């Protein structure tokens, strides 16, 4: 138990940042995010933008899979829906602060539709259904030339706020980070409410939840809707970031990437999502650095980078599942617990 941390009211107990120390850390974190483009340089800013997008999408997937227990292998396709919707709106001149929610809404609608089978099936079968949806949506992306530009893809005009055009990595970074922080806090808040607890109840034992009066079908569809909303916003942000979108961006590999991110990070925790997304984005970069180092001795090392990256990805998933099933969050909590009573042993 933490010393001196007394919760005197329910409100205090449920607060997102209950102690002054937590508030301070969060303020420092936000300050760090604001200053990052100046301190980090252009390539690190690029990576940070990518991480921010991944955090938003992974949060959505964690809501569906981690909190509500519905395995979804089609998350990348929902991102694609959001992205193409945003592209269509942006080409009509709709500003980003309207296009992003609209993209999320479109994605939520598709997510609800894909989640309809959850009425009859669950677990593995639902996973396969979402996998089928992923491929079918991918087919639509590739073939519907009028709507999505087909295999050629679409070019997205840069987002603009007032007169400022967000054409630079450093500028779009702020948009992405603002969305990521806002949506992450919203997700954390969701699980203080009745809806969030209903999701957790469904994950634990859905038949019991139904007995307790939770409308299973509506709640499951709501989980899909909210999670897909996040995916849609992430996809739209990806569109503003890459500016040239093709269906290849939203394939099965990305869905699996997000599943891996939330498992490595920790299913059902928000900090886990952030840690997992950051970890999975940065590991390939560290790997590239390592292989570049190796190529001083072994000239052909760089040619093996792609296969080695894939092997490391798979090995990480298996290693975390076997050795650290609760993810990076659990490792982080162990470290924190160690320091709570330091120098006394726990």
């Amino acid at each position, binding site marked *: 138990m933490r010393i001196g941390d007394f919760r005197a009211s329910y409100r205090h107990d449920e607060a997102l940042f209950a102690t002054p120390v937590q508030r301070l850390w969060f303020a420092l974190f936000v300050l760090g995010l604001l200053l990052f483009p100046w301190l980090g340089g252009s390539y690190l800013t690029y990576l940070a933008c990518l991480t921010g997008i991944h955090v938003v999408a992974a949060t959505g997937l964690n809501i569906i899979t981690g909190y509500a227990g519905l395995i979804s292998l089609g998350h990348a396709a929902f991102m694609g829906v959001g992205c193409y919707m945003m592209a269509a709106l942006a080409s009509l001149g709709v500003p980003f602060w309207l296009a992003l929610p609209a993209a999320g809404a479109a994605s939520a609608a598709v997510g609800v539709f894909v989640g309809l*089978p959850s009425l009859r099936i669950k677990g593995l079968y639902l996973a396969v259904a979402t996998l*089928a949806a992923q491929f*079918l949506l*991918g087919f639509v992306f590739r073939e519907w030339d009028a709507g999505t530009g087909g295999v050629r893809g679409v070019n997205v005009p840069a987002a603009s706020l007032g007169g400022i055009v967000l054409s630079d990595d450093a500028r779009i970074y702020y948009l992405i980070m603002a969305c990521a922080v806002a949506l992450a806090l919203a997700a954390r808040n969701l699980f203080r409410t009745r809806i969030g607890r209903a999701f957790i109840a469904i994950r634990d034992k859905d038949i019991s939840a139904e007995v307790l009066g939770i409308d299973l079908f509506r709640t499951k569809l709501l989980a899909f809707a909210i999670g897909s909303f996040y995916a849609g916003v992430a996809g739209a942000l990806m569109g503003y970031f890459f500016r040239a979108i093709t269906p290849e961006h939203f394939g099965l590999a990305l869905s699996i990437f997000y599943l891996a991110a939330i*498992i490595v990070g920790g299913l059902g925790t928000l900090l886990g999502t952030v840690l997992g997304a950051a970890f999975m984005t940065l590991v390939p970069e560290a790997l590239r650095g390592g292989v570049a180092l190796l190529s001083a001795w072994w000239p052909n090392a760089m040619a*093996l980078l792609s296969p080695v990256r894939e092997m490391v990805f798979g*090995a990480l998933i298996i290693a975390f*599942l076997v050795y650290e099933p609760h993810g990076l969050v659990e490792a982080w909590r162990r470290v924190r617990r160690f320091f709570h009573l330091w120098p006394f042993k726990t």
Partner: protein
Amino acid sequence: MDWNAFAEFSLIGLLSGGLLALVALGFVLIYKGTRVVNFAMGEFMMLGAYGVYTAHVMWGLPLVLAIPIALAGVAGAALLVERFVLRPLAGQPVISVLMATIGLGAVMHGGIDAVWGGQNLEMPQILPRKPLMLGDIMIPGTALWSFVLALAVIAALTLYFRYSRTGVAMRAAASDPITAYALGIDVRRTQQLTWVFAGCVGAVAGVIVASMSSLSPAIGGVALGVLAVIILGGLDSIAGAIIAGLIIGWLESVCVGYFGGKARDVVPYAVVLAILMLRPYGLLGSRDIERL
């Protein structure tokens, strides 16, 4: 309506369905034995094909030796997988095991890519190529013989499970592990054997696929299309896998014939969604009864 064209597409489809049934058999074996859907099946297929390539083309051994050596290699890999990936995760929730097989697939795919490279390699000709002409209809030799081979393997396995001691023990352990333990069957051994069989079935399928076209890491993609077969047939039914394989093979071929190659992208997954909505356990699958 050109009946000859329809007959040709149908026949080719049914024959390729035999191969799909073989791969589906690999999935069904593992699901029956260990309640795991093995998303790494495509990679086992690749391993078998690359194994035969290495033994026959790179080391120069005759096919009669190369194929058993490759199968032995795949069996060894399956044993390692069962011991180090699946056994530690026994009893874990579905998502963990699913992601573990996906991760396993990534490791194997990356490993094969690293060792053999990503380019197309020419497999030796294992199946006779002479086509069968039925009037106007041409059946490619490879399609015909792949069907025959697949059917032979399926028949052999079915007979094994029906009549041999170990086969019956595997079926017993699959249907009720606790009772099987009580009767003295080593359930852990049967699970290892299940993985070995599934791996070898995948390897044979991989060799057939590779010799029909060319050897490349793309072979693993066939396994995703087989998902439709196992969903249609039922995740734990061998007979279902065979029937569903033929149906899906026929459907895919006819759709390609009339709508073009893009149908291969749509047909399997549309079937999956339809089946899951209408009859989730497939044609012959057994219902999951959940108890509180």
